[in-house]
């Protein structure tokens, strides 16, 4: 899993670098300052951070052999992950409503590819966790094979740290990126 995560670091690193390379290069709007919603994204970031906390608590209780608490915290990961996906779905729909799609401008392309790939990772993680919650509930996931959950946990925490970087780079740093001087906003 660590080897996979290492390769994923380079994978996401390339997409984040691409976003930064093309930052501020859009010739038409909407621009980041016109669409990014920091308060809403802060809440979704908090939700994802708390899902990491739930993950580590789930692993602790499964290792301790406390089946019910372990199952409950794995389910919490599933629910929090699903809530995060919901936030992302609403955000994407709102952006489309404002005229920003992957084909609108270079900001749209790089933004949707990066956050979309991250969202795909979250989706895979939620499905994985749902299976583990089922396994824990029926007794197949126990303290002696908690490594299965630990490996899934590493994946989940990795998804979390990628979002930590995305939240800073795309949202907090780019949120003030206004249209270039003399460039009028053109929405499709």
């Amino acid at each position: 899993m660590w080897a996979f995560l290492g390769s994923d670091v380079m994978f996401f690193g390339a997409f984040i670098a691409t976003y930064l390379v093309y930052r501020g290069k859009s010739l038409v709007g909407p621009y980041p300052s016109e669409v990014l919603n920091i308060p809403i994204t802060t809440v979704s970031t908090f939700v994802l951070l708390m899902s990491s906390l739930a993950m580590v608590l789930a692993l602790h209780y499964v290792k301790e052999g406390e089946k019910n608490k372990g199952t409950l915290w794995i389910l919490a990961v599933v629910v929090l992950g699903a809530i995060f996906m919901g936030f992302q779905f609403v955000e994407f729909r709102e952006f489309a409503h404002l005229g920003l799609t992957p084909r609108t401008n270079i900001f749209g392309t790089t933004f949707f590819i990066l956050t979309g790939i991250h969202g795909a990772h979250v989706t895979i993680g939620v499905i994985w966790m749902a299976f583990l919650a089922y396994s824990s509930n029926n007794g197949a996931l126990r303290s002696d094979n908690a490594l299965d959950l630990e490996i899934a946990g590493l994946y989940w925490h990795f998804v979390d740290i990628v979002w930590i970087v995305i939240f800073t780079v795309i949202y907090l740093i780019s949120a003030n990126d206004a249209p270039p001087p003399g460039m009028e906003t053109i929405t499709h």
Partner: protein
Amino acid sequence: MASLWRKLTHHDGNGWWNLPHTPSNEPNPPHEGPIGGAWLGNMWRILTHGGVSHAGPGFYWLVGLFLSIVTLVEVWLFAVEGLGSWYIPLLLFLSLLKFIGVVAFFMHLRFDHRLFTYLFGASMVVGIFIFTLLLLLLEFGNQPPN
């Protein structure tokens, strides 16, 4: 420099700045916490149910609280005007703090086999190298030859 690094990564039981480094399947040494020290070690023992494991729910809740507070500080910085050129470095620093918090404690890298740290660290170096190359390409790639 090498001595300082060794102190930070190899706990010998002396000095509050020394971080413990014991395998995750071994109990914590007495009075040893995640950031060393006697009183911090006592707090650690309470949080980990007597120091028999590397971390317990109490410690994880503390890390979660820390991550939440750092996120709030980031958003507060976003709202503050007049930070100028300090804004991006401050955000990157806070982001790094969260990154380290999750990797070291939630992902247990702090207490895992050192090979995993090297593996992940090497990937980070390659990732940052690719990142830097792309930025340099943007900066100098379109210049006409002299």
